[in-house]
């Protein structure tokens, strides 16, 4: 099978869906033909669609988020590119509101709000406190949104196409450290349903749950641990909402040990939530407390060694796994 970069998987998904359905349009800063957003479709393809379907803007995140929800309710299918995940913050109210509209209508006339809020995590660079945040737990916390964090080019393309066809607001978060990773992606069309976790690595001693770039960090940790005779299973839920808790439970039932790795602030985070759901069902199967590795509730510093002190690292994942084994 051909191999493509993850950013190409995004571009293909967007262009294919734009061709397939003329209600789909793309909007955001720097999505135009001269733009630099990694998620914009290639120049030629944008020229195919014209200004009404590739709506480049300045810095107007509130307009992008709420305007697109309005267009969606009025029958369009917008894809919003926020570039950096941090840029969801200025539109936080509007993104949260997108999850509320349908319930507020009581679902009358089967109203739908098919909008995709796309962005990339910028962590592990020198962006500092406001250009490297990972607002994952907070969007998952908000009701009415679906939340997708793909790891591979294959998953990215299949899940993004599903997102664009979904009739609900979907927050779709990729990762700058993955844009230039390659992977097999078939030429033929395929979709990946939401709510199906995948086992990235089989193992028997400890279960790790991780998404996006955290999967790669965890895989690295697992290699090291294997050499020490510790066998790690890695589950990638791919979508948080809906969450395939079952695949996680099956794994933890087998291993009796769980580590959740998540690059967002750790407090009230993904680790806490998954741990809760696991102890609720499997308290007595847990051989050790669940561990979590995440941002230690700290605005991210610029200096690399400080940033590493705050953020998940391979070493911290290894230590957390070992903690479940003592």
């Amino acid at each position: 099978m051909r191999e493509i970069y993850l950013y190409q998987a995004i571009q293909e998904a967007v262009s294919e869906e734009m061709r397939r359905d003329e209600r789909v349009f793309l909007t955001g800063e720097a999505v135009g033909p001269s733009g630099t957003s990694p998620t914009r479709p290639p120049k030629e393809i944008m020229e195919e669609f014209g200004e009404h379907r590739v709506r480049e803007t300045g810095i107007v995140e509130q307009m992008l988020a709420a305007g697109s929800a309005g267009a969606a309710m009025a029958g369009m299918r917008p894809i919003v590119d926020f570039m950096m995940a941090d840029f969801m913050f200025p539109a936080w109210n509007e993104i949260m509101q997108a999850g509320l509209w349908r319930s507020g209508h009581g679902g009358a006339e089967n109203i739908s709000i098919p909008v995709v809020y796309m962005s990339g995590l910028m962590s592990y660079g020198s962006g500092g406190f406001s250009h490297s945040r990972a607002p994952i737990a907070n969007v998952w916390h908000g009701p009415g949104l679906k939340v997708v964090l793909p790891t591979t080019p294959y998953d990215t393309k299949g899940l993004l196409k599903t997102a664009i066809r979904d009739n609900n607001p979907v927050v779709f978060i990729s990762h700058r450290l993955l844009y230039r990773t390659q992977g097999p992606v078939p030429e033929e069309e395929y979709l990946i349903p939401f709510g199906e976790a995948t086992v990235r690595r089989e193992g028997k001693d400890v279960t790790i749950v991780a998404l996006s770039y955290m999967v790669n960090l965890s895989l690295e940790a697992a290699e090291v641990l294997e050499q020490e005779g510790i066998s790690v299973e890695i589950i990638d839920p791919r979508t948080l909402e809906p969450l395939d808790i079952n695949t996680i439970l099956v794994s933890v039932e087998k291993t009796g040990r769980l580590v959740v790795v998540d690059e967002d602030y750790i407090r009230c985070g993904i680790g806490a939530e998954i741990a809760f759901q696991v102890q609720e069902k499997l308290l007595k199967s847990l051989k050790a407390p669940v561990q979590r590795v995440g941002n230690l509730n700290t605005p991210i510093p610029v200096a690399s060694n400080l940033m590493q002190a705050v953020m998940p690292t391979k070493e911290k994942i290894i230590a957390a796994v070992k903690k479940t084994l003592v």
Partner: protein
Amino acid sequence: MTLPKNLLQKIYRDMIRTRTLDYQMIKNAQSGKMPCGWHSGLGEEAIVGPVSLLGKDDYVTYTHRGAYVWIAKGMEMEDIIAEFYAKSTGCAYGKGGTHIAKPSLGIFGRSGMQGGHLPLAAGMGIAAQMRGQGQVVLSFFGDGCATRAPLHEAMNYASIWKLPVVWFCENNGQSMSVKQDKTWAIKDIAQIAGSYAMPGKTIEDGNDVIAVTEAAQEFLDRARRGEGPALIEIKTYRWRGHYEGDPMLYRTKQEINEWMKRDPLKRFEQLLLAQNLITQEGMQKIQVEADTEVAKAQKFAEESPDPLPEDAFNAIYAT
């Protein structure tokens, strides 16, 4: 005056219907039996005029005083009152309350975060523009809500993209208990149109139904022709408090009385009578019909069943 006779009659009828509904809802709010609070729009009904210019396929956004918009856009009284009673028969099955929605009439609810609907309206304009069938968006908002940040982004992009949106500011000089001199540095809000290269018009006498409707007509036509957005501001006044129960420490009885003398409905009535567009009997008939309509809807709402608890979770996601 260029507005057709039957339009004027429809406007009059809808103003009466709205006002009758409003009085009923005030009573309901005072009764303590209606779960939702009521923001009365009494005194601001001139707005019925512009809404009457819209077709079913056009879009509106409205404020928390939206009764005139819902009615003039074609909603049934039942849909509205039952929703305020949080009944299973309300337009949102008792889930949305005051945030009235009717997608098939281009009414997509209301964000409780004031000003949240301004970019929403621009987005409906995107849909209208892409569809290319001459639909327009008429977006109402108050002077208070107009100070909220998203206005800037929404108006700017509506203009850059020449979206078919007519912005309509109901300036009643008050944002809850705060008077305009504490919420705006300027007096005429339509002045902000200059920041967005669109035409703006302040209608000093915002209780003049004809003037208000004609201004809207001009800008709506312009928008339908693809010439982009425009901003209308009307100076008007709410007779009642911000909400039913408001102690109204921020204004005098005299101020209220002054404005009640400028009642948009009474003045429109005089005009219609003078022009023989209506008779005393005709007026009475319309009022009786409105009373009956409201009473029927009220009864319907009161007698409708509550929603079923298990339905609490069934509207979160579309399939």
